[in-house]
């Protein structure tokens, strides 16, 4: 009898544990917090936040230059860190009211509630992805670049077609991979690495002829990590559209509207341009491959 009671109690406990959680970040509750009930829905007190009064930003567990500096998102250095803090200021947060959480790229699009307000991690906006998550407006117009070793026969290539015979590598989950498949369509299947570091090792080992990464990363790689490497040129992953990086939000998060407003204000005031000038100024004068 005692056993049956125990089983019954356990079942009850399971049922209670599985009961639908009160999901404050869910798409069902779009009403903003009503603490500062003024008319402006994007006033700091009205923002829809994970933790009231604090802005929680996610990025990947390891971050690279020039997006962030010294693997530390909190120092405000690097393009993405600087954009994040400037955006926080526009939304009414001081630097000390910004919290960072680590979110591996693969986990950022899982269904259900997120443990961040938005994720900043060089995530390209694509229509397929936008079905699962919400994106802000683009905060950076990205381009893809091909890096080879200076000694490679591909270092003097003048067009994308020249790379058709090359063995190329890219990082998984980046549009660089799509760029290879759509823009170049090489005869050999590209190799796909879990991160850019591994792609670099393969390039140094001549296991691949070139790696495709976004242009600012390409600058950092050739300037710091592979001095023997060179940027052959830049191109767009799909010929018709401009690739953009956007902030990633949980689907239906009403905060997107206010962040979009702030990003647009930063763009028109020239603030974003200044940040870009500061951290990504080298990214000019790279021949465009077609």
């Amino acid at each position, binding site marked *: 009898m005692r056993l049956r009671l125990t089983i019954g109690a356990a079942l009850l406990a399971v049922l209670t544990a599985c009961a639908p959680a009160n999901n404050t970040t869910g798409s069902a509750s779009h009403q903003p917090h009503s603490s500062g009930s003024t008319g402006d829905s994007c006033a700091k007190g009205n923002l829809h936040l994970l933790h009231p009064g604090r802005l929680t930003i996610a990025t990947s567990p390891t971050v690279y230059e020039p997006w962030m500096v010294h693997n530390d998102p909190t120092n405000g250095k690097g393009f993405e860190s600087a954009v994040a803090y400037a955006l926080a200021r526009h939304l009414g947060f001081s630097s000390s009211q910004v919290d960072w959480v680590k979110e591996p790229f693969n986990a950022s699009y899982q*269904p259900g509630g997120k443990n961040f307000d938005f994720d900043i991690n060089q995530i390209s906006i694509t229509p*397929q*992805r936008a079905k699962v998550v919400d994106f802000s407006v683009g905060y950076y117009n990205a381009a893809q670049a091909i890096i080879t070793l200076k000694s490679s026969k591909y270092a003097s290539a003048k067009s994308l077609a020249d790379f058709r015979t090359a063995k190329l*590598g890219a990082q998984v989950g980046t549009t660089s991979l799509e760029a290879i498949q759509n823009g170049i369509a090489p005869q050999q299947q590209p190799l*796909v690495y879990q991160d850019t570091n591994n792609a670099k090792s393969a390039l140094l080992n*001549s*296991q691949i002829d070139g790696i495709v990464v976004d242009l600012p990363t390409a600058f950092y790689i050739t300037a710091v990590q592979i001095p023997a490497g060179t940027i052959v040129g830049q191109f767009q992953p799909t010929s018709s559209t401009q690739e953009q990086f956007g902030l990633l939000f949980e689907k239906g998060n009403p905060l997107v509207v206010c962040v979009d407003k702030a990003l647009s204000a930063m763009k028109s005031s020239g603030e974003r341009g200044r940040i870009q000038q500061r951290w990504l100024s080298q990214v000019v004068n790279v021949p465009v491959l077609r």
Partner: protein
Amino acid sequence: MVEPGRQRSGAALTWRHNPDPQQAGWVKSDRQLDRERDQHRRAVRSLTLAATSTVALAALVAWVLASSPGWQRVQQSFFSWEQAEAALPSVASGLVLNVQLFLTAEPLILLLGLAVALTRTLRSPVTFPLRVLAVVYTDVFRGVPTLLVVFLVGFGLPALNLQGTPTSLFQLALIALVLSYGAYVAEVFRAGIDSVHPSQLASARSLGLSQGQALRHVVLPQAIRRVVPPLLNDFISLQKDTALVAAIGMVDALNAANIYASTNFNYTPYFVAAGFFVALTVPLARINDVLAARAQRRMLGGAR
């Protein structure tokens, strides 16, 4: 052993309740019939209870899943039929690499494992350095995570820039897997060899076989038969670990799933890949069962 007294009293009972002289031989007593009825009733009752509780639990799980507010999104993200269909071709073509790697690596692993295990059985003082090497090899490669071996061999070996080192990624991946699994399999073989009773070797030697002949004809046949199930177990594990070659950029089933997943923000392809791996593993597991049953039959030697 049944006490004789009790047996007698039982028999007496039987005849007292069934005094029918026409029926030759043994007749079930009323008590026996009662007992059988009761057993039947109990069987039906426990079957009904088991079936009801199974159905109830399944229904409960299904209800909790389906009624949870996020179920639709979970289904869409993890179990979407359209996504599975769309990802199937690329995952399947990635699986070819897994199967190739697995089939090529397996015989090499067996050879290496057996060679290392035999090296450890050597007794001559001249072979001492070989024995040390064998011990160091099994210790190191069983201790180091397979992923690290894949990295080291895949990126480290070509970086040495030595003449004659393979450059093909397939060969490098093969070397890494063989090195890692060879250590496990060597230990399995050694366990098998150690499990053969020393008297077997001693009697073989006393019959005039040399140490080598005794190993070859007496010890190894018994040892290998014993370790077939653990060997197959290691190979099932190897099948899955072929996915580790994704670390050096090769596009196997898992990497193909990863590519699709991160492009479309949908996890379904991982389940497609998992389905393929299970489909590969199940036949091996059944072969394992058949082999185990055969070994059992042989040991019984016809007795039941």
